[in-house]
């Protein structure tokens, strides 16, 4: 009744090709943006930002990045943790090398550096695909973690091999370090999340995204119709790594503040982000958000229910957590192999016909 195209007339081409062609969708999108930008910053405290919003926003960026590579371009990657580490260490070196520069610039540059590293490790994708490419990116994961552990220049020769984010600001507002305000770090991450989502969404709608999808669906056919696989694959690696690098930089500098490469950016991180996009939905920006929310918020929610409400022992809850999250993943993949994004799509289709489905 409310969710329909009827009565919404496009009179110009930009109107016709906008991201959310249905009016209800558009307003919902503006409402979410409004709540996220205008309402939440005035309501959050440290707990909300550090335990819930920040991990969600940062993992959403990483999931968007990986989704471009895996979901849109079909190049399986297990190197996400390694690329996040590149972003984090690049950001650390920039922060300590140029303390007076704004954090915005540092994070963007860290993304840029990661993009270059990503292209480098994307070169094998021109020759190999599928599982073999996964193994090649797995090598990137282990190599990068080893590199940041081994070469002490990356961690400024500190005794422990840890990197610590010093206090840095942007426009005079502290973004990193212990004395930050909850709303400032939240807004900082939110800006990057919105930026990533908008850029990714529009890239995937345009010619670049169509090339990626052509490569994903059938690379030989794509080549025959004139898609340059070198350009398509390497741009996918570059854009994907750019976002993953941004998320790594934020993960280290804004969220954790101190990072140890093996623990924070190990292979488990690569799998975590991969699970996010598989559960959320491959080839969908909304799916990246849904997957990140699912895997970040569900454990916190289960912990609050189990420990704080029911008063169960913490170890039982921690184990139950694994069982429930694991079980839900299996259920989701059986019931809806295309992820949460597909559920969303189906729901929208149903809404279009509601309340007269016949």
């Amino acid at each position, binding site marked *: 009744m409310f969710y329909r195209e009827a009565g919404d007339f496009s009179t110009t081409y930009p109107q016709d090709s906008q991201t959310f062609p249905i009016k209800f969708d558009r307003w919902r999108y503006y409402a979410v943006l409004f709540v996220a930008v205008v309402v939440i910053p005035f309501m959050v405290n440290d*707990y909300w930002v550090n335990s819930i919003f920040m991990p969600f926003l940062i993992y959403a960026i990483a999931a968007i990045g990986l989704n471009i590579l895996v979901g849109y371009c079909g190049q399986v990657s297990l190197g996400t943790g390694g690329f996040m580490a590149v972003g984090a260490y690049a950001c650390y070196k920039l922060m300590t090398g140029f303390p007076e520069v704004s954090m915005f610039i540092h994070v963007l540059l860290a993304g840029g550096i990661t993009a270059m590293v990503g292209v480098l490790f994307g070169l094998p994708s021109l020759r190999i695909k599928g599982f073999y490419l996964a193994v090649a990116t797995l090598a990137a994961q282990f190599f990068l973690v080893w590199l940041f552990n081994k070469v002490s220049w990356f961690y400024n020769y500190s005794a422990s091999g840890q990197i610590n984010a010093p206090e840095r600001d942007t426009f005079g507002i502290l973004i990193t370090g*212990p004395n930050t305000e909850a709303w400032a770090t939240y807004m900082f991450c939110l800006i990057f999340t919105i930026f990533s989502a908008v850029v990714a969404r529009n890239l995937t709608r345009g010619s670049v995204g169509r090339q990626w999808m052509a490569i994903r669906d059938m690379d030989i056919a794509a080549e025959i119709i004139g898609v340059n696989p070198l350009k398509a694959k390497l741009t996918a690696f570059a854009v994907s790594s750019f976002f993953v690098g941004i998320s790594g930089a934020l993960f280290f500098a804004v969220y954790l503040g101190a990072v140890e490469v093996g623990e924070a950016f190990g292979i488990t991180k690569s799998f975590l982000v991969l699970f996010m996009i598989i559960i959320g939905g491959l080839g969908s920006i909304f799916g990246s958000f849904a997957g990140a929310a699912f895997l970040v918020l569900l454990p916190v929610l289960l912990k609050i229910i189990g420990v704080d409400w029911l008063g169960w022992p*913490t*170890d039982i809850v921690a184990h139950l957590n694994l069982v429930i999250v694991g079980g839900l993943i299996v259920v989701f993949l059986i019931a809806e192999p295309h992820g949460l994004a597909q559920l969303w799509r189906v729901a929208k289709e149903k809404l279009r016909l509601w309340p007269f489905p016949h």
Partner: protein
Amino acid sequence: MNYKLGTWAVAGLMAASPVMADLVFPSLSYRTGPYAAGGIPFADGYADYFTLLNERDGGIGGVMTRVLECETGYNTEKGVECYESTKGEGALVYQPLSTGITYQLIPKATADDIPIHSMGYGRTSAANGDVFSHVFNYPANYWNGASAAINHILDLNGGDISGKKIALVYHNSAYGKEPIRTLEKLSEKHGFELSLLAVDHPGQEQKSQWLQIRREKPDNVIMYGWGVMNQVAVQEAANIRFPMENFIGIWWSGAEIDVQPAGDKANGYKALALTAVGDDFPLYDELRQYVVDTGKAAGAGDQLGTVPYNRGIYAAMLAAEAVKVAQKMHGTDDITSGQMRDGMENLVITEELMTELGLPNFGPTFSVSCQNHGGEGLVAVTQWDAAAGEFVTISDFAPTDMDVIQPLIDEDSAAYKAENNIESNCN
């Protein structure tokens, strides 16, 4: 977005619950994951001691204590979540039992005016209280441990170890890397040859490291391991028939559970110690009477007297004593975290005090000051007796080489101070 709204509602209810007047001790424990073998008994000991205080004395100075347990799984992200969710409850002191989480909490807790007690772990240079106002690592730190191990080797060799080969097998993390610089300095001073063998998290795969040890034949092996890594290392050492009496672990590699899987072959394995071993102390009788027999023990209640359990008891005891000092200093029983910090900074542990608490000779004596948050750094050595199934103390709490350690502490803390523009705490 729907998930977000759901959790909003949940936490709204959570925040609405009232805060009572009590002394809150968060326990960032890990009863799951590859490091649970050490995490469980420590968390049990920590909780049991406060339960005893509540049951026997009605709290500390008449104010009940409350242990808030939060599972971290030794994972830094969960550690952050635990810190944020517990700090609002009036947390007095954090003991994360993880070097990674400690590193993360140092700036945060300092900004929130909550002290951290990283007992025998964490950032070693935090011993310099002038820079690290809210971090304490008494009674001993990683560098004391490295020096104590070398001192023990020196004792065995009549004071001369020049030309000896010593290998360090370490957990490839901030924790394991901490002693490297100290050992390098000590190797310059004493003329031994140091080789470094890193073991990656979680430490189940050590074949290549021990193959290298078999090839290089070092005279002594020092280990900085934790969790499942310890058991594997002791087993591997037994497999290559490395003489166990030349194998010394840090205090995190010296629990019963680390050596038991290797059976008789682990006999003679040595480990440094922060506390006495066993349960032959008057306090343990009271623990049994008030806590275990009444069914109030944390966990399964079967860990009494194990090395990590004793360490948990010791950590809780030091925290409780610091509370008493703070209560006396500030003339109030329901202290705040800032007052707790003052209490910790003026803590003095003497033999008489420990005897009075029912823990004679349980740990080293030390005193904390504004400049020195690390105590005197006395460390004991224990040895595993496989037949009896227990660790035996073979050398009493002895001083370590502060001539080497102090300059390193000053250097590292000065670097931190400059990096973060920290003002002096002690003037």
